[in-house]
């Protein structure tokens, strides 16, 4: 049996730590759900937004190409007012024309003769660009090719031009392919956006914008470049490509490569038959930005909850300490520290019915009033403390000790052996008899101390606590009548 001078054992409460753990588990689940919900929201939002960004960029590319073709058309319009009669004159005029972005100017006459630098003319013949020129309505654009003169990928725009009355020729304006890169480059998301020109028939692609600025003008084939699309998304991609192949103006698709989800959009280039602008963005490009915000929110919540947990813990410890003090005050006798009467009555109810048997002992210090009167209240109090200490030493291992009031103490012991109890009582009697109170007053003699005690056995003498106490009180009465300084068992 533990220390019975505390009432805690009587009624076990739910552990604070168990509650804290439960709260923590709930918190973890809540955070998990928050993250999942947030991620799902971001993913949906990103898919929609990346498709819109793709569409905007492809429109931007389309508009820029249109602007280039308009520029080419304007050059032709300006020149047409000068009434040239011979292609040589036109070419000479073009040679004097200087534009920052145009890296080559030439002319193709009605017969198909090319007026250009030797290297460019050779390229035109090799790539059969005169045929592309014939498609001008009013402007056409060549496929990207590597210029011999410049060593770099270029595109050439052709625009119709009438000379010498009704002769139809074509003005040729060559741009570096990377001009398209400059058009398409954006400040934000620049490392994630990829833009290609794609040929619907061959699925060949040529990069305008990618992670590496040096990759502009690189050729590839979509079957290879997008060949590692996850199997479950391949049909979606094929449908998207079929739409391009069928000549639809634009279409979008989302697919995954490994764990990365991409949004991809194409739009038709009117002046470049068979070619389309394709824009691709990994959806997580946006998620990563939102992810930083999400992480900050989560970290804030965690720190906030940690602070709350610390505050609650500090408050709990403080409250627990105060509660303990109050409990002690409410269950213990202030002078002796043993249980008070009320606490004893609660304890005995619980304890006695849980045990197989026990003995209730009613103690009364003999002539205590005289000691108080004769030796002072301090001496009386000291005696009560000494007596209660002896009681605790004798019974605390197998019982509870209480002060009922004044000099009355009640002990409940679960020691079932009468002989054993007698042995304890005898030893206690001797120890108490050895207590002396020294008189400070010369008129008063030193006092010898003794006690009287009545014992009742549960369940033999009574099965009810109050009855049992009455039995012990009856036995006490009898020993007092018999001359005190001893103890007596209740005998009915």
């Amino acid at each position, binding site marked *: 049996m533990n220390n019975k001078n505390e009432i805690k054992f009587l009624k076990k409460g739910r552990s604070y730590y168990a509650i804290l753990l439960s709260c923590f588990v709930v918190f973890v689940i809540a955070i998990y759900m928050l993250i999942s919900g947030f991620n799902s929201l971001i993913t949906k939002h990103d898919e929609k937004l990346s498709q819109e960004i793709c569409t905007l960029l492809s429109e931007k590319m389309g508009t820029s190409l249109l602007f280039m073709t308009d520029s080419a058309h304007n050059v032709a319009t300006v020149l047409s007012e000068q009434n040239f009669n011979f292609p040589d004159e036109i070419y000479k005029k073009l040679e004097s024309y200087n534009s920052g972005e145009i890296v080559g100017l030439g002319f193709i006459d009605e017969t198909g003769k090319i007026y250009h630098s030797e*290297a460019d003319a050779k390229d035109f013949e090799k790539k059969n660009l005169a045929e592309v020129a014939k498609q001008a309505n009013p402007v056409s654009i060549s496929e990207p090719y590597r210029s011999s*003169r410049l060593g770099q990928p270029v595109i050439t725009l052709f625009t119709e031009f009438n000379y010498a009355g009704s002769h139809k020729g074509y003005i040729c304006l060559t741009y570096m392919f990377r001009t398209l890169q400059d058009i398409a480059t954006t400040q934000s998301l620049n490392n994630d956006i990829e833009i290609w020109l794609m040929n619907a*028939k*061959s699925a060949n692609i040529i990069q305008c914008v990618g992670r*590496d600025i040096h990759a502009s003008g690189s050729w590839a084939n979509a079957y*290879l470049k997008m060949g590692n699309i996850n199997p479950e998304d391949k049909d979606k991609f094929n449908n998207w490509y079929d739409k391009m192949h069928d000549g639809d103006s634009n279409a979008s698709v989302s697919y995954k490569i490994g764990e990365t989800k991409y949004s991809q959009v194409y739009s038709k280039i009117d002046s470049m038959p068979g070619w389309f602008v394709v824009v691709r963005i990994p959806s997580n490009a946006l998620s990563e930005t939102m992810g930083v915000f999400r992480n900050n929110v989560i970290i804030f919540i965690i720190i906030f909850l940690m602070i709350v947990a610390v505050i609650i813990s500090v408050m709990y410890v403080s409250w627990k300490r105060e509660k303990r003090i109050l409990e002690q005050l409410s269950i213990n006798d202030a002078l002796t520290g043993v249980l008070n009467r009320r606490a004893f009555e609660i304890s005995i109810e619980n304890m006695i019915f849980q045990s197989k048997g026990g003995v209730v002992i009613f103690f009364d210090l003999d002539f205590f009033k005289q000691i108080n009167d004769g030796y002072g209240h301090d001496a009386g109090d000291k005696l009560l403390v000494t007596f209660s200490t002896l009681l605790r030493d004798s019974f605390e291992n197998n019982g509870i000790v209480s002060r009922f009031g004044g000099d009355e103490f009640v002990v409940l012991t679960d020691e079932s052996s009468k002989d054993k109890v007698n042995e304890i009582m005898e030893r206690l009697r001797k120890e108490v008899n050895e207590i002396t109170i020294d008189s400070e007053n010369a008129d008063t003699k030193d006092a010898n101390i003794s006690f009287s005690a009545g014992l009742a056995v549960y369940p033999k003498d009574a099965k009810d606590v109050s009855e049992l106490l009455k039995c012990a009180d009856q036995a006490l009465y009898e020993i007092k009548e018999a001359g005190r300084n001893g103890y007596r068992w209740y005998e009915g």
Partner: protein
Amino acid sequence: MRKLLHLFGICIMLLLLSSCSNSVKNDTNTLDKPVPDFVPLTDVVEGRKDIYLITKELDSNYWDIVEEGAKEAGEEIGCNIYHSGTYSEMQWKKQEELLDRCVELGADAILISPDDSVKLASKIEEIYEKGIPIILIDTAANTDSFNVCYMTDNLEAGNKAAEEMLFQLKAKGISEDEDIKVAVLIGNSKSQTINERLAGFYQYWTDNAPEKWTILSEIKESNGDVELGGQYVEEILNNNPDIKGLFATNNSPTISVSQKILDRNDTDITVVGFDYSDNINSLIESDDYQASTIIQRQFYMSYNGVKAAVDIINGASVNVKFEDTGVITVNSDNYKDPDVRAIIEGRK
């Protein structure tokens, strides 16, 4: 109990925080094989111009011919030619080191065949800005910071490969109404050369092939591994009985394709590859097989490159920055032709 709870709490917290951060992936380079220092290909005579040649693959017949071209030009003109290179196209970082080494050694001009057209562009720009003439051979770099580039127009070469495949399939008597497929095996998808050949092949094929003759959409990448390439060919042929042609974009997959066709004795399949090897030679020379290969004129890439380098050092201006050295198609009809033999053997 309290300690356990604290520990549990810390674990959960770490778990939550780690879930918010991105995992860091390690990019380990397994191709750190050291490359040799420059060795002279010509006699080294003091006072002559020092021209450095950096090639892609040491110990390769193709690149031996490139060395020969540089050596012959060096001897003709009278300049010192030094050579080094990498063992694989994946070793582009080693080429960066070699470029720095050229500067350190006081190169008057550098001829380089970039392992990676994109990744080496910055380093090439850096060297070019130091005023050292840069001549690209075999492969372009994605920059205009070079003086001149001698290489095959790979888009055109891809066109020629597709043209040859169509010619051979038609010569075999396959009907235009028959549903057939050709499959493609490539070396390294990061190589611009390979991508351009592939694009050229698709370009010509989609413009000229009968509607029912299509290209298998699954393009296999052997990454320079001949054995792996062979396994892919085996898979392709086993899974697609309608395959009638195999196209390989460069030397290594061409060896894989040729070897597998020989092993399977698959005389029904037409092979079109690139470059010359014993395996493709065996197919071309045999009457049982139908095979062709596109041969580049790599001798002239370095030969012309050295000559251009000396001209540039001497102050000549360059009017053409990209010169297509051209290709020839070798097949059973012309492999015995002395001119063709000369190109194959690097004598022209």
